């Protein structure tokens, strides 16, 4: 491919974290105008390898050449000067600063008097945002934005660097199909301009669409390199995991039982509305026990807000409509209250809402179910340990020791910890908000298997996801939300991803959405 003009050549890269060998003698190259996908399970070392390239991690073994010249970066600024930009997996933005300030942080545009040129920054930010497919007011504080919107801001930020090498570490994990398509348009433009792009993702269908080459890492080591367009998803996944994996998501259609949850015309009028929030504005749906119901919708359709309302963490305000759990009307007041009713919730953003990153895996796993492990407020260590080990086994968690900080786990394994914590509360109804965000395909199928198992035990699941294949494959039924209202309901047995998308977008948008599909429909 780009043997002649390798933009980046990394050789024999090694990196150790304490007892973990995150990378081991990895070779990696990137050519100009190439989109190189980097694949591997959670914890395979993808992010680490790219952090080394982008100057974030400065202590490592091996060599890096840029344009044939040996380099060694003292920090991210150095790498940026050498034309390397990275979109980090964890959204590293400053919540208190505006979108524009975040995009230009560290490289503020100046006026003649050396002061910050806010106007110009806002103008350019707006253009950049539009280019990456979102129309956001660049003056809004980033802390107010949805996760998906934040992800688009980081993309805009990376694009603004005009880098020759652009590393995208799971840029689409919180995006819905339409934003992803839009991003691909941008990627193609950049590629035409000679930019080399490293693309990391756990969404297999994206790889074949966008990548020219793919490299697989396993346990920090190089496994293989190939043209993803020539391999089937199943083959790619087998290269990643080292064994064949069921990639078609299907959960056995458990016999669904009685009605578990009924939501009737739920409306929430918060006392102090916040911009960008889409509170329930007339939602009705049901979940039967043993049923997995999906929630589809565009960015900001109100899926998260619905789940939050059901879990008792919505902002205070007037609520109308009914929430009925097993025939009994409930008014979820707080997570604690919801848990006591048998409702569990796995939040979307595990780092800010899910985990105490610097606490142990053990402490994070058992925190919701502590009363079960002892009496009179005293914890029986053996019991909590046993529960924790049991859950780790069941979820096939990949970790060193239970005492290790949960923050040292790879993203997907962190997600499993949050998931496991809720399972330990033995819920009747599980509310899941993007539970597989950033989770590798192997682990995903574990989670789906588990969901199937839970459904088999009669637990009801309400699953919000931005991945249409996931919704179609895993759920029995999908409810589509738009603007805080339920607009359609499909049985997955007889509907497609396209149907869901159409319903999510509304009539006019369907047309435009199709247009996008055609324009970007696969690489030429």
């Amino acid at each position, binding site marked *: 491919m780009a043997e002649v003009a390798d933009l980046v050549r990394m050789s024999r890269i090694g990196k150790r974290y304490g007892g973990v060998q995150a990378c081991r003698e990895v070779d990696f190259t990137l050519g100009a105008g190439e989109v190189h996908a980097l694949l591997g399970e959670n914890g395979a070392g993808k992010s680490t390898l790219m952090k080394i390239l982008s100057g974030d991690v400065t202590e490592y073994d091996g060599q890096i050449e840029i344009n044939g010249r040996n380099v060694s970066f003292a920090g991210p600024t150095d790498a940026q000067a050498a034309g390397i930009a990275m979109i980090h997996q964890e959204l590293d933005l400053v919540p208190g600063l505006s979108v524009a300030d975040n995009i230009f942080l560290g490289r503020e545009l100046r006026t003649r008097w050396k002061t910050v040129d806010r106007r110009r920054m806002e103008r350019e930010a707006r253009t950049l945002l539009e280019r990456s497919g979102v129309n956001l007011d660049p003056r809004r504080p980033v802390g107010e934005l949805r996760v998906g919107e934040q992800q688009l801001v980081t993309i805009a930020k990376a694009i603004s660097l005009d880098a020759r090498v652009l590393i995208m570490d799971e840029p689409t994990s919180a995006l819905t199909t339409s934003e992803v398509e839009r991003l691909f348009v941008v990627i193609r433009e950049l590629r035409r301009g000679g930019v080399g792009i490293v693309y990391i993702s756990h969404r297999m269908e994206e790889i074949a669409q966008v990548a020219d080459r793919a490299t697989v890492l396993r346990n920090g080591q190089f496994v293989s390199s190939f043209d993803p367009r020539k391999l089937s998803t199943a083959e790619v996944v087998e290269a990643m995991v080292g064994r064949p994996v069921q990639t078609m998501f299907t959960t056995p259609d458990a016999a669904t039982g009685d009605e578990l949850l009924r939501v009737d015309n739920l409306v929430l009028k918060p006392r102090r509305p916040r911009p960008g929030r889409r509170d329930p504005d007339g939602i009705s749906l049901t979940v039967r026990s043993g049923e997995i119901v999906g929630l589809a919708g565009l960015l900001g359709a109100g899926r998260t807000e619905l789940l939050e309302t059901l879990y008792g963490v919505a902002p205070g305000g007037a609520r109308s409509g009914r929430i009925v759990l097993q025939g009994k009307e409930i008014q979820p007041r707080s997570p604690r209250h919801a848990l006591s009713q048998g409702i569990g919730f796995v939040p979307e953003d595990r780092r800010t809402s899910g985990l105490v990153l610097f606490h142990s895996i053990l402490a994070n796993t058992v925190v919701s179910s502590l009363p079960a492990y002892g009496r009179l407020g005293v914890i029986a260590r053996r019991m909590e340990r046993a529960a924790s080990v049991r859950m780790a086994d069941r979820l096939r968690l990949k970790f060193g020791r239970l005492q290790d900080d949960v923050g040292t786990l790879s993203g997907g394994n962190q997600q499993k910890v949050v998931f496991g914590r809720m399972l330990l509360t033995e819920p009747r109804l599980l509310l899941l908000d993007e539970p597989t965000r950033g989770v590798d395909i192997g682990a995903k199928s574990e989670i789906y298997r588990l969901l199937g198992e839970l459904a088999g035990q009669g637990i009801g699941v309400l699953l919000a996801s931005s991945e249409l294949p996931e919704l179609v494959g895993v759920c029995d039924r999908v409810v589509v939300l738009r603007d805080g209202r339920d607009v359609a309901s499909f049985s997955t047995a007889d509907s497609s991803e396209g149907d869901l998308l159409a319903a999510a977008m509304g009539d*006019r948008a369907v047309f435009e959405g199709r247009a996008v599909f055609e324009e970007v429909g696969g690489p030429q």
Partner: protein
Amino acid sequence: MTNAQDRSATDSATAPAEVDRPTGAVPSTTAAGATAVSAAKAPTAVAETSGGVVATLFRFQSVFGLLAVFIAAIIFSPRRDGEILFLSADNLANVVRAVSEIGIIAVGMTFVILIGGIDLSVGAVLGLAAVGSAVLMVENDWGFLPSIVVVLAIGLVFGALQGMATAMIGIQSFIVTLAGLQIARGLARIWSDGQGVAIAYGNGPDEAPDSFAILGERTFGGLVPIPVLIFAVVAIAAIVFLRVSAFSRHLYAVGGNEKAARLSGVPVIRVKIAVFAICGLLASLAGIVHAVQLNQGGPNDGIGYELDAIAAVVIGGTSLAGGRGSVAGTVAGALLLGVLNNVLALNNIDSNIQLLIKGLVIVAAAALQRLRPAS
């Protein structure tokens, strides 16, 4: 796209006011969060409707407490011949004069707290600077300018050293500056031999130059004390600085998400050192103002000022966690404390009861800031 329009319509009707929004960092939020749900291809430009009066008001909600206390002060002020004593020009000048030192310190403290730090040494540095200016001008017979410059430099360097200990070794700033407090206090006592150094003015030996005395006078028809002017200049300079400088973005970034700041190429260590240096500089400026106002540089001057300054910052709405807050809020916080002290003193409330009232008012003022407009 009805979605988007709906959304923004709702938005503009209500106040977006995130309470702790850094006024300095996100200055122009006149328009409400005009976000469009981005569907497929055609992003819809949304008309930027104004966020409304409420939104604007609530951006300055740290001023609410001040306003409430101000109104209470008017109501409870003693009157003479129908004149509301509290509102008389010279009383108001006194109010501001009394908080000018704390105010100057609090501006520097705001910077430190914005990066998520704290500086407990400011009171002691004030004392050191007060002693320094007195000793240099009176005992060493230095001129006005060299003395001032050296004293300011001492504050700057002292702050910078503390900044280095925090930024480079990574010790919590609370500990570094608690140690700094003791060190500065010890130095002040040693330098002054433990006794206040009296400042008399004139050209003789053992006299400070008259040019120094001017700093303590009043101007604008004898109404505005120069210390108030200095405070005002410092505050305005800080506000403008935070609005227009790239440095301020870096500062908010370090306080808001240090990792993100580092990844964006913000020179985190340099920012931290600079911020502590600024804080030390302002503390020593306050020390100079202190000395000239009291005609003395005392080694024990400024004891406990750090808590007052932090209180002003926090009442002003700046979060101790860093990343959010504003100098304007701090000024409001300092004035609130000043007005409160003044009206209690005007009414000659028993000093013990004063303590109770102050405590309750401070909590009430802070609680008021948590309020948001109901929709």
